[in-house]
């Protein structure tokens, strides 16, 4: 009787362990996916077929060994050049806190962050303008064509500008005031200072005259520099 139960128990153990083996083979055991078979078609014909998965050098967890490895002793010169606009664009500049009249945005939702369903918008620090104008990673700005630049002759600084992305708070701001963006540089433009000393320019219209303005992200309004 005892031996029969032992055999039954062993058989159950073997049977139940089969699904876990199958699960592990599907990658369910948190292991890197097996290398795709050579005969298998690539998921997208245009994309290059993925190479065979390299075994992770670390046991378990995710494979971020390249990203967590110590940096190389001397970074490439190209990377250095790309960092330059970062430092320039994030230089804290005095004088971009305007106290002129607030030009009401009739199209934005009422109250603070009404335009964002009442949820506070906070700048993402590694993006130009905190991400207000679009997902422009600061480290990538060097490879991106600037959309003009605002030159601050007094402080001997120039602030590169970039084209506003659709579906962003910045694009909504421009649409709300019926403003059309144009490259910064020429005189007589609407100069809008956004988060983190970002700047864009637009043609003046019947609502907004030429001059300097600051964005209030809470109310998505423009504040004029001049009283």
């Amino acid at each position: 009787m005892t031996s029969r139960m032992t055999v039954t128990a062993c058989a159950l153990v073997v049977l139940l362990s089969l699904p876990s083996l199958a699960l592990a083979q599907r990658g369910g055991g948190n292991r890197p996916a097996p290398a795709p078979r050579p005969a298998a078609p690539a998921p997208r014909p245009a994309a290059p077929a993925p190479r065979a998965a390299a075994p992770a050098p670390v046991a378990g967890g995710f494979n971020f060994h390249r990203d967590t490895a110590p940096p190389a002793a001397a970074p490439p010169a190209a990377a250095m050049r790309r960092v330059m606009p970062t430092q320039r664009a994030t230089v804290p500049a005095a004088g971009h806190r305007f106290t002129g009249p607030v030009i009401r945005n009739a199209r934005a939702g009422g109250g603070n962050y009404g335009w964002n369903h009442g949820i506070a918008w906070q700048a993402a620090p590694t993006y130009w303008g905190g991400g207000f104008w679009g997902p422009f990673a600061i480290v990538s700005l060097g490879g991106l064509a600037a959309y003009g630049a605002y030159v601050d002759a007094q402080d001997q600084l120039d602030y590169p500008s970039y084209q506003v992305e659709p579906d962003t708070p910045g694009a909504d701001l421009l649409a709300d005031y019926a403003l059309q963006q144009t490259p910064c540089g020429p005189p007589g433009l609407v100069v809008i200072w956004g988060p983190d000393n970002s700047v864009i320019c637009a043609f003046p219209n019947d609502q907004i005259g030429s001059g300097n303005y600051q964005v209030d992200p809470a109310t998505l309004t423009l504040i004029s520099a001049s009283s």
Partner: protein
Amino acid sequence: MSRFRIETLVPVVLGALIAAVAPAAAEGITRIQQADGTTQVYHHVMMRLSGRTLWLRSGDHRGILEVTSGACRYLDGLQRCLPYQTVYHDHGVAHTIALEHGTVYTNTTGENVQLPHSADRLGPHEVLVLLHTMRGTYVSVKGTLDQIK
């Protein structure tokens, strides 16, 4: 005595096996493509959202990816954020991963929501994370949030 032991042991063993085999709630899938093109896919990733920080824990509990985002925009039930800080906790050791750019989409509703400019949809409380690191690693994560704080 031995019969008593076996009868006691069998349910314990069966229970342990069932617990090990049964699918957990964590059903997130993470795909990591290295700069050299090699790719790893991880299943059963647990996804927890705490404020603006998303925690992704590997199925074996040995690695946790922490993604902090800002500039969150809400559009028709869909939250789109820009990740700016990524920390990988490897066996308890924190490594900052230099991030170039990325996007985190979260469906904050209980219904399907269409992604902007895409035919794809996110299910209720589903998250889609796309990251590109400074060292050329592409990370994509998709799954339903297991926990929201």
